[in-house]
């Protein structure tokens, strides 16, 4: 088999056969091309996130995997069986794929028990009951079995939706922005809970979200998408610390880009002083570049070389995010512990503490 563009296994020879293979697919959304030559491989028991701004084509990919969206090029295989190709589609009901929706899509006229049982109609009544009971128990919904969806809280509806999708024991679970209808606190809690549950049960899952926190909570690997293509496929840690493009660096986390020039293969000259890298930057000397400076790279130090004025402050509890403006007119984002409490227009001294430099070629300024 030809190796796919993106693999998530370090050793292709020892890796088991992937459960889901998306090979070079393209799709239209309406009349416009929404997905370009996209490939994706997901192994059994792995949780993968498609992360990107709205309109980047991530939902279209999910719909294509579920069998709701036709392909213009490429193919999709689930469990070594081709389910989608150009002009040929296995209908969604025959794919053994479970899906959880943004609005939960619970059937309002059915009780929780009936909702969870909806995917089990080919089972005998006894099997159905035990499967539903088991599922409700695992989700902590046993007390609510006879209630109707509108009587449940958002988090409970979320669990019912998950239970309904998982009850028929699908090969693959798809989730479309599953947490975006929940409020912030519940969202983090549910993200953790669902992640634990999926891991415990070894469920393979592809989730789509525009929220990086959701993606980081759930994804073993995260695919950052833009304009119908995957820009970077990596672990959450690497996405934050080693973004491969300006777009990813900008999209994930906060930070600013500091203009500079490569002075040696491991050294960058900027208006805020020279920065040393722990690895070879693999850039030609004298190239115009920009360096990613994360807010946690800017350290409060009374003896620091950089003097800046506080322009804005955002209190975040344990920490405060400051927007600083240096004498050179450069804007920095800085995350200080709450003890370092400054008011707007206060003068602050900082230094840059960056070990691993993330450097991009500077785009010609328009």
């Amino acid at each position, binding site marked *: 088999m030809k190796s796919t563009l993106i693999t998530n296994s370090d050793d292709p020879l020892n890796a088991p056969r992937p459960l889901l293979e998306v090979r070079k697919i393209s799709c239209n959304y309406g009349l416009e091309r929404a997905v370009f030559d996209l490939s994706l491989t997901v192994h059994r028991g792995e949780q993968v996130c498609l992360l990107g701004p709205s309109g980047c084509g991530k939902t279209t990919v999910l719909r294509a995997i579920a069998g709701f969206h036709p392909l213009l090029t490429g193919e999709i295989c689930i469990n070594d069986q081709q389910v989608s190709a150009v002009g040929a589609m296995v209908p*969604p*009901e*025959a794919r053994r794929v*479970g899906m959880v*929706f943004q609005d939960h899509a619970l059937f309002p006229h059915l009780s929780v028990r009936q909702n969870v049982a909806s995917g089990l109609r080919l089972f005998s009544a006894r099997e159905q009951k035990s499967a539903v009971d088991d599922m409700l128990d695992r989700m902590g919904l046993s007390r609510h079995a006879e209630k109707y969806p509108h009587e449940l809280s958002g988090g409970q509806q979320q669990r019912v939706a998950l239970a*309904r999708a998982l009850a028929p024991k699908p090969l693959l679970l798809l989730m479309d922005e599953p947490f975006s209808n929940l409020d912030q606190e519940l969202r983090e809690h549910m993200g953790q809970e669902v992640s634990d549950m999926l891991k415990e049960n070894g469920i393979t899952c592809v989730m789509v979200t525009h929220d990086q926190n959701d993606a980081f909570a759930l994804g073993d690997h995260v695919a950052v998408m833009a304009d119908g293509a995957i820009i970077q496929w990596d672990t959450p840690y690497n996405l934050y610390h080693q973004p491969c493009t300006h777009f990813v660096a900008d999209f994930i986390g906060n930070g600013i880009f500091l203009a500079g020039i490569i002075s040696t293969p491991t050294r960058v000259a900027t208006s805020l002083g020279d920065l040393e890298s722990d690895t070879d930057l693999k850039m030609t000397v004298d190239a115009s570049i920009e360096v990613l400076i994360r807010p946690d790279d800017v350290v409060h130090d009374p003896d620091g070389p950089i003097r800046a004025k506080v322009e804005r402050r955002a209190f975040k509890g344990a920490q405060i995010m400051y927007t600083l403006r240096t004498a050179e007119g450069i804007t920095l984002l800085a995350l200080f512990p709450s003890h370092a409490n400054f008011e707007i227009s206060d003068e602050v001294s900082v230094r840059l503490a960056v070990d691993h430099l993330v450097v991009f070629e500077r785009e010609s300024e328009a």
Partner: protein
Amino acid sequence: MPVIAVLLFALGGSGDIWTHLVETALFGYVETTLWLMLGVGVSVFITGVSAAWLVTMCRFPGRKIFEWLLLLPLAIPAYVIAYAYTDFLEFAGPVQRSLRAAFGWESMQDYWFPNIRSLGGAILMMGLVLYPYVYLLARSAFLEQSVNVLEASRMLGRGPWRTFSTVSLPAARPAIAVGVSLALMETLNDYGTVDFFAVYTMTAGLVDVWLGMGSLAGGAQIATTMLVFVVLLIMLERMSRRHQKLYQQASSRYKPLPAYQLGGLKAGAAVTVCALPVVAGFLIPVLVLARLAFIYFDRSWTPDFQLYVFNSVALSAAAAAIALTIALFVAYSRRLHGGKILAFATRVATLGYAVPGAVLAVGILVPFAAFDNTVDALLRKYLGISSGLLLSGTVAAVLFAYVVRFLAIAMGQVESSLEKVSPSMDMAARTLGYRAGQTLVRYHLPLIRGGMLTAAMIVFVDCMKELPATLLLRPFNFDTLATHVYEFASDEMLGEASLGSLTIVGVGLIPVVLLSRMISRTRQTLGASAD
């Protein structure tokens, strides 16, 4: 299809009647129609908008009741209210009798009394029963207006009246225009009233030329002229609806509208303004009809009458069932495939409601008659037998007309209830192992049952009321309630017609009640979704 038939037939039809028509009556017809439409347009606008504004923006005693009382006249077909008022206001009627008694007048020469059977009378009658279209749409437009915008306007120093005229009214303009154009379509459709009042509109002319002079071609030609009006009205409506979408971006959060508390004289005035259309448009005609029906009960409650009721109910029920089935089929396949051709087909199919019944009748009869003649000729030639009339002049033609005319209502209802079912619901059912058809039966039908029932009800009642198409297409000696009422009324036997009229009104009340319940329910769900 009927529309195309009308056009073709009109073009190829006998020219002599056309020239004759142009020379004599046509301009009269057009002129009368224009005056009638203008009059009805103005009166429904004033009545509908003022009533809608009062019940949504002001608080006065009885407001809650008026909110749905104002819908009641919708239940009365224009021809029925016309019959009722003719009886009420005629020389021997209660009004003139009491006037004579009060002032000691003896005969007609002693005083002047306006003749209700005139153009003005027709405008008044139609205005009274058609204003609810404007009222309904204006009311929901006012309700959906963002409270914040209104409050902002008050903050910027505009008083209640200036806020109304500079903010509320312009923002509701598209909705009001839709309401007025619907009322005008009904005006164009009306035959019973104008015939009874001897107001020669195009519809009256069409029926006259067809039934009186026996010229289907002449009828088709008038129908073509009417289609010009129809096209203009449709354009007005479609354009307004497009604006309506822009203007009415209802905020998802429900806030009670800021209400102007009215007291004393102002409250009295508000009650009067709201009560007037209800009393004149519903209470008086119903009382008049009830009295007549009571007096003439023995003479009208005959086996024939029961047959007419049965005919009406059976026809209307069949039409409702067919229309609903087609609507469900088309709407669901659109949901599944969403093609451009299907979308276009739906739009064409739903134009039927704008085409006046009389025009539709011509359009149906022409191709049906051609079909019958062809079959008949073929059979005679080869088998020597006559097939007679297969389609035209049968109940099937009437049924077909009903379905074409009221399909739009069924489509609209079914589509909007389907739209409320989130598309992810479909996907959920599919990923759970159900095929598209199973999804429809197991999940969609239970969810849209309410909307389907409402649609069936409205189509049913509209069929019961429909007069011109029934009159023109029905088989010989076949009567429905509407034609029965019409025939007695044309013979000036209003007493005998009253029981039938009252029955139509009674049936017509069902969708009005449904409608008002639906309105109060949307308010509740809006309120519930806010928390």
